[in-house]
């Protein structure tokens, strides 16, 4: 459909709307029919494209239901081999065959899922009481829908059995192990990934899956530091089935103000199977601190039909679970028989900060998630001191932890899909570490990612002996003025090189002999097109970090002013440092941004008619400018200076610096041309630029400052010859 409209509109705009009336009626009818036929044809194609999918999917659905019972039945002979118990010394470089993953430009592993089979022993009894669970099916479906999936077993890097071992309680250990060993590509468990959430069984509840599994990787919920093979296994959460059913009212996100909504309780304990010793300690805490604590337990006398999982009670008072978790700042997540608790997931979902009391527990996804920012880990032994410890945490930090908890749940806990994809991503990051996701990507919630700045230039380097700067003069044909500018700049002590960007394709630059004779090397670059963005191209000729962009009519800047500007930039290397300052303002009446060139108390832009900056920003301007800004600037022949201000402010999060008091930059001979009206259209255009760029950036990155940099002694009554920069001060 889109194609069609492109076709026709292309035609009309090409020839103009007057075309049809001028044609003969016969032809018109002919063409109209032709087009309708084509139109109908395309519509039909479109329909065809949509219909079959829905038909297929219903077909798939019934097919699947059938095939689950049709899954081939495999009988396990008693004498079948059993894999060895997991090897605790396994690491990626010893137990994982990295050759299978290969080198690929996408840096993504390929994951294969074994087809479903139903294993039974010789007596026909299945190896698992639940068979394929809903959650494991969700997990496998997620993988098969993801970019990791491959159905080609020979290209796979990671193998996921369809044998469900999420819950050890429903498994027959020996038979499950035999079934694993029967998998066609098992090969001592090499590159196989097992998902388990409830490991161990009574009486001592091992912290890792008891099924012998050779070298298979284990994504386990409830690892202790003794069973977890760091850098090999993946610690995953215990999925809480409540997550799928319950949608908690939005309490966070977007508006930081909301965080300050008071929560009724300080500490809440909602688990039902707490060891009686610990429950006694919690009750003692409650006695000491009263209302701040809420200790919930199972409800004993619920009417029939009420889901007991969704209710908690305190002395006959009934509370909705997990909604009640939202009413507390901190929520206790105490170890049970197992270290991993599904409660953790509920607590995070409610934006309640989990207090983890489970010694030696490896927190979910701890390889990548910074739990210090989202939870409080307290040794079980210190349970009696819990209240004092938590009270010592500043309120603002608690709020941030709540936000962080919410984000962790959203991104990594909320569904089997989230859990599965996070696990695969972690393994992927190990195999392609140079393309791994960063700490910030893993840990910063979208709000922070969005508002934070992560500039690739972050180290405050201050060169000891400075290599000087390269002046880049953009010119078209104002030769006389250009030569005056060159002569002025050549007096600046730190000038390393002068680069003239010749933007006039119809005219050659003057002969070499006509140019002013200056000490620094002078180089002329001829451009192919008259574009403003040529001024910001990262020319190889620019060998210094510092670049001075200057127009060919800025003749009034003294060499002291320029040298001083350069030295300021050396100290704050990643900012724009310039002479003409401008401001953006919010126009309340019009509801949009406005460009301001009056003398104000503030500055948010410096114009690149004369400004120092780092060469890196040339590179960003040329190759990384968001949206169509670059083309837009070239098309309008305006606002390249505003664009670079946006770019630098966006990446550094900082305002530019205006240097020296000078405010007048128009040359005397330019003022004559029809002043005011030109000025006004100019202002309107510039305002449009700001609004346009703000919409492309999706935000207003510009920052405002109300100070500028001047030399130390510039206003003092002091002998001129004792000042470093005497020739500064004129407006």
């Amino acid at each position, binding site marked *: 459909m889109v194609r069609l409209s492109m076709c026709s509109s292309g*035609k009309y705009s090409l*020839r103009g709307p007057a*075309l049809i009336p001028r*044609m003969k009626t016969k032809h018109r009818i002919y*063409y109209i029919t*032709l087009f309708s036929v084509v139109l109908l044809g395309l519509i039909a*194609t479109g329909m065809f494209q949509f219909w079959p999918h829905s038909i*297929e999917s219903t077909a798939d659905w019934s*097919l*699947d*239901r059938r095939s689950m019972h049709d899954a*081939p039945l495999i009988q396990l002979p008693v004498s079948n081999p059993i894999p060895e118990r997991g090897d605790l010394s396994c690491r990626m*470089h010893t137990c994982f065959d*990295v050759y299978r993953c290969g*080198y690929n430009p996408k840096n993504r592993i390929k994951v*294969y*899922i074994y*087809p479903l089979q139903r294993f039974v022993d010789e007596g026909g009894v299945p190896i698992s009481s639940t*068979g394929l669970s*809903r*959650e494991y099916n969700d997990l496998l*479906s997620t*993988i*098969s829908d993801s970019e990791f999936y491959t*159905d080609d*077993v020979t290209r796979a890097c990671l193998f996921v059995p369809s044998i469900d071992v*999420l*819950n050890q*309680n*429903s498994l027959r250990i020996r038979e499950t192990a035999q079934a694993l060993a029967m998998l066609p590509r098992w090969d001592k468990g090499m590159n196989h990934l097992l998902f388990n*959430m409830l490991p161990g069984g009574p*009486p001592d509840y091992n912290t890792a899956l008891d099924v012998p599994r050779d070298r298979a990787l284990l994504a386990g919920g409830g690892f202790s530091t003794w069973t977890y093979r*760091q850098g090999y296994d993946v610690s995953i959460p*215990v999925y809480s089935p409540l997550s799928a059913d319950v949608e908690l009212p939005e309490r966070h996100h977007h*508006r930081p*103000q909301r965080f300050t909504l008071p929560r009724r309780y300080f500490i809440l304990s909602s688990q039902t199977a707490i060891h009686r*010793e*610990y429950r006694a300690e919690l009750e003692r805490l409650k006695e000491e601190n009263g209302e701040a604590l809420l200790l919930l337990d199972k409800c004993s006398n619920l009417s029939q039909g009420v889901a007991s999982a969704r209710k908690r009670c305190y002395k006959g008072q009934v509370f909705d679970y997990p909604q009640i978790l939202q009413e507390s700042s901190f929520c206790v997540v105490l170890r049970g028989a197992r270290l991993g608790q599904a409660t953790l997931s509920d607590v995070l979902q409610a934006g309640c900060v989990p207090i983890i009391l489970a*010694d*030696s527990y490896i927190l979910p996804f701890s390889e990548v998630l910074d739990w*210090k*920012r989202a939870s409080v*880990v307290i*040794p079980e032994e210190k349970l009696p001191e819990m209240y004092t410890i938590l009270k010592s*945490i500043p309120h603002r930090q608690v709020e*941030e932890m709540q936000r962080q908890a919410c984000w962790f749940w959203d991104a990594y806990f909320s569904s089997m899909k989230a859990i599965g994809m996070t696990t695969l991503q972690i393994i992927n990051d190990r195999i392609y570490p140079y393309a791994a996701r960063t*700490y910030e990507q893993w840990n910063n919630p979208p709000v*922070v*990612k969005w*508002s934070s700045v992560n500039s*690739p*230039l*972050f180290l405050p380097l201050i*060169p000891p002996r400075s*290599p000087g700067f390269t002046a880049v003069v953009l010119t078209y044909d104002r030769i006389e003025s250009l030569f005056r500018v060159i002569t002025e700049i050549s007096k600046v002590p730190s000038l390393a090189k002068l680069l003239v960007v010749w933007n006039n394709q119809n005219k050659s630059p003057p002969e070499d002999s006509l140019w002013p004779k200056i000490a620094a090397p002078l180089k002329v670059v001829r451009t192919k097109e008259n574009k403003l963005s040529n001024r910001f191209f990262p020319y190889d000729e620019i060998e210094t970090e510092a670049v001075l962009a200057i127009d060919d009519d800025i003749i009034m800047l003294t060499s002291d002013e320029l040298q001083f500007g350069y030295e300021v930039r050396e100290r*704050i290397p990643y900012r724009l440092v310039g002479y003409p300052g401008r401001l953006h303002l*919010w126009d*309340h009446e019009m509801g949009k941004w406005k460009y301001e060139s009056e003398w104000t108390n503030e500055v948010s832009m410096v114009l690149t008619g004369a400004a120092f900056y780092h060469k890196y920003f040339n*590179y960003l301007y040329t190759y990384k400018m968001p949206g169509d800004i670059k083309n837009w600037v070239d098309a309008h022949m305006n606002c390249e200076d505003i664009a670079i201000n946006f770019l630098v402010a966006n990446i550094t999060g900082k305002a530019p610096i205006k240097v020296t008091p000078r405010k007048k930059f128009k040359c005397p001979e330019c003022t004559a041309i029809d002043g005011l009206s030109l000025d006004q259209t100019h202002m309107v255009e510039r305002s449009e630029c700001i609004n346009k760029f703000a919409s492309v950036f999706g935000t207003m990155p510009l*920052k405002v400052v109300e100070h500028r940099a001047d030399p130390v002694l510039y206003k003092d009554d002091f002998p001129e010859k004792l000042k470093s920069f005497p020739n500064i001060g004129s407006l």
Partner: protein
Amino acid sequence: MQAKKRYLILFSAGACLILLLYFGGMQTALSRSNNRRDDRSLDGHHGSPQWHHFSGSLQPFSPWDQMETEEYNVHISPRQKRDVISGVYNGKRCRMDSCFDFSLCKTNGFKVYVYPQQKGEKMSESYQNILSSIEASRFYTSDPGQACLFVLSLDTLDRDILSPQYVHNLRTKVQNLHLWNNGKNHLIFNLYSGTWPDYTEDLGFDFGQAMLAKASIGTENFRPNFDVSIPLFGKDHRSAGEERGYLKHNSIPPYRKYMLVFKGKRYLTGIGSDTRNALYHVHNSEDVVLLTTCKHGKDWQKHKDARCDLDNAEYDKHDYREMLHNSTFCLVPRGRRLGSFRFLEALQAACVPVILSNGWEMPFSEIIHWNTAAVIGDERLLLQIPSTVRSIHQDNILSLRQQTQFLWEAYFSSVERIVLTTLEIIHDRVLQHAARSNLMWNSLPGGLYSLPQYSSYLGDFPFHYAKLGESCHDLQIDLKCASKFIHVDGHEFGSPGITTGVYRKVLF
């Protein structure tokens, strides 16, 4: 003119028709492939069918009442269980929970005691530096009764029997220390262990429940959150203070003369020789320059192979320092042991280290995200290394390079830095909930400058504002956020006039 228009229209109509046919064709091809997939799944499970999305009728993996089991209550009390742990998990399975006595740190905080030096004991200069760094630190106490951590005055740095620095009879000397207590709350520094030919990580004495701060430690022997992996440093490593890295400016584009360099010994046989013997496959003598020499040890001529003479000649032509300073990446392959001096040299020279040392627990891995400052390679994939480093984007090279400088200056630039970092890592474990977050350790100015006693909340440290978008969350008057909330709130705080306060805080 009319005819021209007509042709044009005819042409565009034709183009649309072709487009239509094209789409139609693709559609049939698509549906055909769909059919094929269906066919395959229909006739059972031959070949490799896609995973089906089963729905309905499946049971949950754990019924709710089963997940929160009650049986637990009848078993032994958790208090007893905790006591059992410390009995079971010791030696190679030590963890803070089982081998460290937190109660010693309770009353006086994290204090470190250094045993008085005994007369006649020889001690290397490096170990002397370590001890004086501790004694000069804010953690030092001269009273063993106040101490939470103990450091020996016996030189344990070099445990290679063939080395002249080797201290004999360490076993008995250690056992005779009356505060030894089977090594509980002791920290032992070590740079070299094992000897030719197998270079095991055995220290040659029983260190009981002591923690190791050890160089070249392998993941198999490393006890997570208990041991500390430290870098290998030479005896002329600066003893105290901070030494700047060599990066003086950020060149754009960031590429240097060489892409990847290495200059070092080639072991002809024995442990660690595989990778170095294969380096010549990757060497291209242009921008990937990997030079090896066979000349080392007394009897190298005996094992000499066909390439040795050629390699040795080229090796002598290049200067190590020149290569180090003019390369974007520096190869850091394992030596006989897992770590090498080259690692710190590359780090200081802002040459991004490319690590080829399988199983090496990277220095201070507990707190440093090495992916931001180094490329962790796999010895098995040596041949892929050139394409890997070439695939790294310019922006990433810039930030990798700067991160090398930050990490070097913050944690590695002197023996004092290395020792303090080691102590602070253990300090963080003792502090538990009040420990520094990973962000503090991995961004300027680094963990040693954020005192957890002051605060462990990121928002209290101005250096992290920009990374956290803190001005947004906290001060709420930042324009960037303000413009975002315009839609949400229905009123504007767009006027930039109110932003002034922010910039004084985040100025530099």
